[in-house]
């Protein structure tokens, strides 16, 4: 009886049509609350997704009409552009800005259970409600057993590598957090369970001979630095590339300062040459500008080693403006342009010469300066300044 009910319910779920709900109601009720809730949630989720997909499609059609585009031309990129145009947002965090994306990308996913042919849930751990975490625990247990056995068999013998009989080397890293583990296993579990898993892991890692399970352990470890807040604000340190023609290492990054966007390419094994929009270093008349430009090299003590190529542009010129508004014609001046280039240069130098990353970071050259010119207010002469008040 139970089996039949399960079969039916699983079929109902796989079809996932709301019409089949009342048909199965009687039989579902007999098989307990958990599964009933699960089936209900599943159907609700399917229905909700259907609704949102339809809504998205209608929205897309409306948007295409508003932007006077053909519906086929309106791909995701065009949608993003249209939203940026229709709802201009000054919010700094990109996540806080309005978006329009397919519901499958945006909405939370529903976790489904898998069932076998006969309608039984796959794996006996299904009934523990936390199959993945219990699976992990038993895996740790099995590995602990095998490590102990391996050590007992091979201790003192010369047939294995000596390093394999040591405990695993976990220096410089730590266990991943509960949140990350939940994401990794795509399953929710309580903190007690997490603590139990960590205890099991600790035990395994402390055993002599656990070095053979190094790979397994490091899957659940993360480097210490990543979690101590050393992540850079702004663009990350770029990857080092190798130029196919000259066979020289280089790194490239795009950054900005105030209203100036700069794409900087730093090339290793150079002469200390600068090329900023066709200008060389001696074209910068002020010592301040030259000092700013050379700061990363001075701090990393690599003067004359890197060539720098940079192109700059004005950010506000590339923003979507109302059609009748003239684009602003501003570009970086004596310090903003060199500072934009300096940030890019510092990131690239850190990539090409990793020993200098720490000094550069400590001197603040790897951090983006997010400050912008404050907009002037209506009815005021400037951003903060007020007209002189006068008693008539």
């Amino acid at each position, binding site marked *: 009886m139970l089996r039949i009910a399960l079969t039916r319910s699983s079929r109902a779920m796989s079809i996932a049509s709301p019409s089949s709900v009342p048909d199965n109601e009687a039989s579902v009720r007999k098989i307990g609350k958990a599964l009933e809730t699960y089936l209900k949630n599943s159907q609700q989720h399917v229905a909700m997704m259907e609704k949102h997909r339809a809504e998205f499609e209608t929205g897309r059609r409306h948007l295409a009409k508003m932007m006077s585009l053909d519906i086929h031309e309106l791909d995701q990129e065009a949608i993003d552009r249209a939203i940026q145009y229709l709802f201009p947002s000054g919010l700094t965090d990109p996540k806080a800005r309005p978006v329009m994306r397919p519901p499958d990308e945006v909405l939370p996913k529903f976790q489904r259970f898998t069932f076998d042919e006969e309608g039984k849930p796959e794996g006996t751990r299904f009934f523990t409600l936390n199959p993945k975490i219990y699976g992990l625990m038993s895996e740790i247990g099995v590995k602990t057993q095998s490590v102990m056995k391996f050590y007992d068999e091979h201790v003192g013998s010369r047939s294995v590598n000596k390093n394999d009989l040591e405990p695993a080397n976990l220096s410089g890293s730590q266990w991943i957090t509960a949140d990350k583990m939940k994401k990794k296993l795509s399953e929710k579990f309580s903190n007690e369970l997490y603590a139990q898993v960590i205890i099991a892991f600790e035990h395994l890692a402390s055993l002599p001979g656990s070095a053979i399970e190094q790979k397994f352990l490091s899957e659940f470890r993360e480097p210490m630095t990543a979690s101590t807040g050393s992540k850079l604000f702004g663009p990350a340190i770029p990857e080092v590339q190798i130029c196919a023609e000259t066979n020289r290492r280089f790194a490239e990054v795009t950054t900005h300062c105030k209203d100036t966007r700069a794409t900087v390419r730093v090339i290793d094994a150079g002469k*200390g040459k600068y090329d900023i929009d066709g200008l060389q*270093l*001696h*074209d910068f008349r002020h010592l301040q500008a*030259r000092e700013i430009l050379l700061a990363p090299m001075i701090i990393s003590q690599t003067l*004359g080693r890197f060539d720098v190529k940079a192109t700059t542009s004005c950010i506000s010129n590339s923003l979507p403006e109302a059609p009748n508004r003239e684009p602003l014609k501003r570009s970086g*001046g004596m310090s903003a342009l060199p500072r934009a280039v300096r940030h890019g240069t510092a990131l690239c130098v850190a990539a090409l010469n990793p020993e200098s990353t720490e000094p550069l970071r400590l001197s603040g050259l790897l951090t983006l300066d997010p400050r912008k010119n404050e907009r002037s207010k209506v009815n005021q002469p400037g951003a903060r300044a007020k007209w002189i008040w006068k008693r008539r």
Partner: protein
Amino acid sequence: MKPCGRLVFQVARRMGACEQKISSCRQFSSEATAHDSIKVGTLCEMELAVAKQLNMKSHLPAPLSKQMDTLGEIVTLIREPIAEIASCMRVVDKNLPNLRLVLWGAFGTGKTVTLNQAVHHAYSNKWAIVHLRSAMELTRRVKEIEMSSFVSGRINDPSNAVAILQNFKQQNQHIWKILGELLTEKDYEWSKSERTLKSKPITEIIEMGISAPFLASDCVGALFRELRRHAKDDKLRVLVAIDDANSLWGKTLVKRADRTYAPPSDLTLVVHFRRMISNDWTNGCVLMVADKKEVADARDELGVSRHTPLELFGEEGFEFVEPFVPIETTNYTESETDALYNYYVNKNWLASKAARSEEGRKQLMHLSAFNPYYYERLCAFN
């Protein structure tokens, strides 16, 4: 008393050692007389007496003449352009029309210093020197004006004319005797009362101009005319060195009676100098500097304007000075900065510990962007 005296002695001894070290890599002006002794990359010291005669204090760029005061000597680096100029001056001949050289280059790369080195080179080879500190003074710094009585419509500039004559007299003291033997070609009637007769020494023209400023502008013209004639006759060789020569075709700040600006071709002195530049005479060398201060906006702190001769001379000026030999001045190379760095360290001009370290040497080099002007400025503050 005693320890103090010993200290002085020690310092003196150390200074002596320093000087020995420097002089080993430095030429003195007495050695530089011969044409072929110009060695690129060496430091050349000019004797102070000579520098005083050539009026280097006012002709050199201000930071360098200040440095001359501070260090008590004038040492410049021999670079490619002056070697090129020297080799050009060697081929000057009475059968060849005068050689026109245009020095051009970015800001602070040593155009004026090279010009002064060339003047010094001419001095050591006993040439006559016509040296103009800046052509811009003739067009933009005219204090008083007079209408010319010689050609109607021309504007005389007595104060600048007197300055030119005085400068000529001072700079040519080494050949003053030879100049005294050169005679005028014709009678010059300056005014109703003043005149210079035929077959009188041309130095009389100079004296006349200096003593009577209202005649000075015409005297300059007469002097230049006589110089050209005698150069053609191979009596002497003439170096005409004009700084900011493109200003002769630039804009002026001289106002006429109707309150419009006079074109440079209306200024007597400008006309005289243009005649000196034209290549209808022989046995001379005209060295011009194309400088961007004529066209560039000094208040524009970010813009970078062109500094090639065509842009600076303009169509008219370029056609006038063509054909010429362009000589480009460039930024320092690393070895050139090293030569100066060693000189400054030996003279204790670079005093701080940081500047004397290897890292300091590199930083000075790169922060100045290898530009001679910026390098001197940076070294003056370290």
